[in-house]
């Protein structure tokens, strides 16, 4: 590698490639400034939404111009990373919007909350674009550290602190695993650049052990069996807007990286990955089946969905000549971001009126009192279950296409039957809302919340658009 001068490295394409990162960083700094002056408090939401939307605009420019490899081959900006960036930004915006008026006792620190939350997509985008393990590591920390704080944001509550601590301890463990793996890989190959690794490949046992450790640490981030144990407690203890972000954005970032690094794994690993994916689906779906709390149920459902996306990785290892894996994972996770984002968001809405309202029995008969909210939640459930006319269906179609194309028919059939189990608990939610009478004194008041209504409306619209007009997105992702 020939180190060039600063101006060589930081050229036009590079400026474009990092423009979303810069935009968000400026947004974060401005938020910090606004935080200092009470009179500027009202500007906060404008700044937050403004930075996200500007970053989205930057991503659309990247999508059109595709700068490619920049910054001395350490960062990639193309249509795929732009699409990932879009998912990260949308999930952050959804999580933030549903978080408006969510916090009560902790409102005094809401400025910090917004700053931390706006930092996370920067980390995710760095992770997704990284072509060098060091750059990736920076992204990982940029994402994780704010999330640790956010998970424990409701300081007065034990479960929130517990969630933060659990996430931090296990996260630190995963980070250590990653660093150890990267070190082993470096000893073996002498490089940390994915571009160079792609040419040399990893062959020795030591190098493969390093790869396994790296992949294991990513499995932790995307909540895949057997690294999923933290999920139910952390998802439930964290403030729901933060859970939303973890479930959608963080998971998408993890898979973006996994797809990026899948080439490090030998093709023979396909069977193992497929088995892990199926186990993850089984653990998630069976766990969700017995939950009485909506938030915890969705946490388990999130594990199951991670398993489904992991099937794509198995497929891409077993042979994927047309590179449909990235497209399938992107589509699936985009649909999941809006679906699970919306569903968690509605749970945040319930929860804001009282902790006990996230129980399944408290939404009995909701359809009669709040038909709009019930219809939205029902749509999200059907989309999570993969019923057509929703984005979830097409995501499922694409994921299983990858699996079938890789000739893993048995895996496909077991996987698809596991998703029948999933419908069992998604239907319970619909049954409770539409088909069962309201319980006396259990019904959530559901105070009107304009922010949450808007966010839910956008999620509903996106779930339907992704389900009915897939061409709008698929054509840009090839």
């Amino acid at each position, binding site marked *: 590698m020939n180190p060039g001068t600063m101006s060589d490295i930081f050229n036009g394409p590079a400026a474009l490639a990092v423009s979303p990162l810069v935009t968000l960083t400026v947004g974060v700094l401005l938020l910090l400034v606004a935080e200092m002056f009470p009179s500027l408090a009202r500007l906060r939401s404008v700044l937050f939404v403004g930075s996200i939307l500007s970053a989205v605009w930057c991503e659309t420019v990247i999508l059109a111009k595709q700068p490619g490899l920049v910054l001395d081959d350490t960062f990639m900006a193309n249509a795929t990373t732009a699409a990932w960036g879009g998912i990260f930004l949308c999930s952050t915006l959804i999580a933030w919007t549903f978080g408006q008026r969510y916090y009560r006792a902790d409102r005094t620190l809401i400025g910090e909350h917004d700053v931390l939350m706006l930092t996370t997509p920067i980390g995710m985008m760095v992770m997704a674009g990284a072509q060098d393990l060091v750059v990736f590591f920076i992204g990982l920390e940029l994402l994780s550290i704010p999330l640790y704080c956010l998970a424990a944001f409701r300081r007065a509550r034990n479960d929130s602190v517990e969630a933060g601590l659990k996430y931090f301890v296990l996260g630190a463990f995963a980070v250590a695993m990653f660093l150890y793996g990267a070190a082993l890989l470096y000893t073996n190959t002498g490089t940390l650049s994915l571009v160079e690794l792609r040419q040399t490949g990893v062959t020795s046992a030591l190098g493969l052990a390093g790869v396994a450790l790296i992949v294991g640490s990513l499995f932790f981030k995307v909540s895949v069996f057997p690294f999923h144990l933290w999920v139910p407690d952390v998802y439930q203890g964290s403030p729901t807007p933060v859970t939303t972000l973890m479930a959608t954005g963080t998971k998408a970032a993890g898979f973006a990286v996994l797809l990026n690094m899948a080439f490090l794994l030998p093709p023979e690993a396909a069977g193992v990955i497929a088995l892990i994916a199926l186990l993850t689906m089984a653990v998630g779906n069976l766990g969700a089946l017995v939950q009485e709390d909506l938030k915890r149920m969705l946490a388990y459902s999130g594990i199951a969905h991670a398993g489904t996306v992991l099937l794509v990785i198995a497929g891409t290892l077993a042979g994927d000549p047309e590179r449909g894996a990235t497209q399938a994972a992107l589509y699936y996770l985009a649909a999941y971001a809006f679906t699970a984002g919306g569903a968690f968001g509605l749970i945040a809405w319930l929860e804001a009126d009282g902790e006990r309202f996230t129980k399944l029995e408290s939404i009995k008969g909701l359809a009669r009192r709040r038909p709009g909210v019930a219809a939205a939640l029902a749509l999200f459930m059907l989309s999570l279950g993969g019923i057509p*006319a929703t984005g979830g269906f097409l995501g499922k179609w694409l994921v299983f296409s990858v699996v079938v194309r890789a000739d893993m028919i048995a895996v496909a059939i077991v996987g698809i039957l596991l998703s029948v189990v999933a419908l069992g608990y998604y239907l319970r939610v619909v049954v409770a809302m539409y088909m069962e009478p309201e319980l006396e004194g259990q019904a959530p008041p559901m105070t009107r919340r304009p922010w949450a209504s808007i966010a839910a409306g956008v999620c509903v619209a996106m779930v339907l658009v992704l389900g009915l007009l897939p061409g709008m997105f698929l054509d840009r992702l090839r």
Partner: protein
Amino acid sequence: MTSLAWLTFLPLLGALVVAAAPARASLLRAITLGTTLVVALMGVAVYASFDVTQSGPQFVTEAAWFTLLGGIDVHFKLGVDGLSILMVALTTVLMPLIVLSTKGHIHSRVKEFMIWLLVMETGMLGVFLSLDLVLFYFFWEVSLVPLYFILGIWGGERRLYATVKFFLYTVAGSLVMLIAAIALIYHASLQNAVSTTDIGALTRWSANQPLAVQGWLFAGFALAFAIKVPVLPFHTWLADAHTEAPTSGSVILAGVLLKMGTYGLLRFGLAMFPAASVAASPLFMVLGALGIVYGAFLAMAQTDIKRLVACSSVSHLGYVIVGLFALERTGVTGSVLQMVNHGLSTGLLFLLIGMVYERRHTRNLDDFGGLAASMPVFAFLFVFAVLSSAGLPGLNGFVGEWLILLGSFQAAPWVACISVLGVVFGAVYLLMATRKMLFGPLDRDENRAVSDVTGRELLIAAPIVALCIWIGVGPQSFLGRTEKSLEVVFERLDAARSSLELGRFDTPHTRRETGEVR
């Protein structure tokens, strides 16, 4: 947009109008009735102007939808051919009658009900009209959702159990079909550059594949359809769903939804995988015959009249299966007609049972007796429906059953002999139920007080009665529309059968061997 797109999506538009309309039951019902009537008129117009000399799809509407990876184009393609024309006509004609019947039994949440009813119609028509595999699958699964709500909200006491069972059973089948569909699309695009999901193109590809390829794909598709029909070991969801559903739900279920299964077996079984159908024919014929007899025995043991009719559905659909998998002109033609017949006569039976339930709030056969004296017109209609269902010559059921038995006797005499038992048993349980309900002494005060059918109820029954007689007297005008398209299926089946006999469809190894012999 051309006629078929309007036909399919007009109900959905109607649903939007209903959603926006003020919540006055009579108004909502009027909008729904109006929409379904317009759709029915369009359906009849399509039926009337259907060109009987063509075998391919007619009134085709096509537009690009999206492109899957590998350049596989998914089209929004609708069209009607001989395999679907009767189903489309049946669906459009039954719907207004179903809407009329709701006045008697849907009193709460009328708006939601009308919306689901209209969405249901779009889903069902979409299934029958789709000429693209992705679109077909799309409608196939979408049509589950409205019925799930109809059953779950307006159903009887055990509705939640029935509705979840119904949904999970069918979804499990459909998802296996999803894998088969993906595999079909992928393999077709890989080997022959059929870079489309057009059903016609895929059929032409798959019909020429060796049995080893056809077999697995057929198994995936057939499982979904067998659950939907339902074929024997998968029948348990049906009795629960039928019994718990509100009258209109039962009519949709019996009249149209189950036919989606038999229609699927025809289009995606016989037509698409002829060699596999030939190979699976003994299995399906035996299962069909067992279904006929077992369903009849189940029906005989019932004391709930609605459950009795539900079990008789299992028996009647057994005939359709036997006829289809006789893989022979007479039998398949009979089955196509029997799909319509079952929709009409069982639909009418459910409607009539609904009417008497609205008056007496019981369906237990022992609670009735002598109703013929207090409800003469109802009694006439009920006896008519029973006779049509039992296959009295001169009515529709006779023609279908006759053709099926004739066809299956040629293909597999033993199966036909077992199936014939169903005709006898069918007459037994239906006539026994009729005797218990309508005749005998009128010894209960409640039964003396019931009023006869109203004008509205007569209006519901009259078109079905007329159609039953029409089909019974002149079946050729109905069968003529299916002939040309079925001819193509038969040609494929004949080709597959002769190839199988020559061993050409066997494994590559034996293929080489027989090649030497030839």
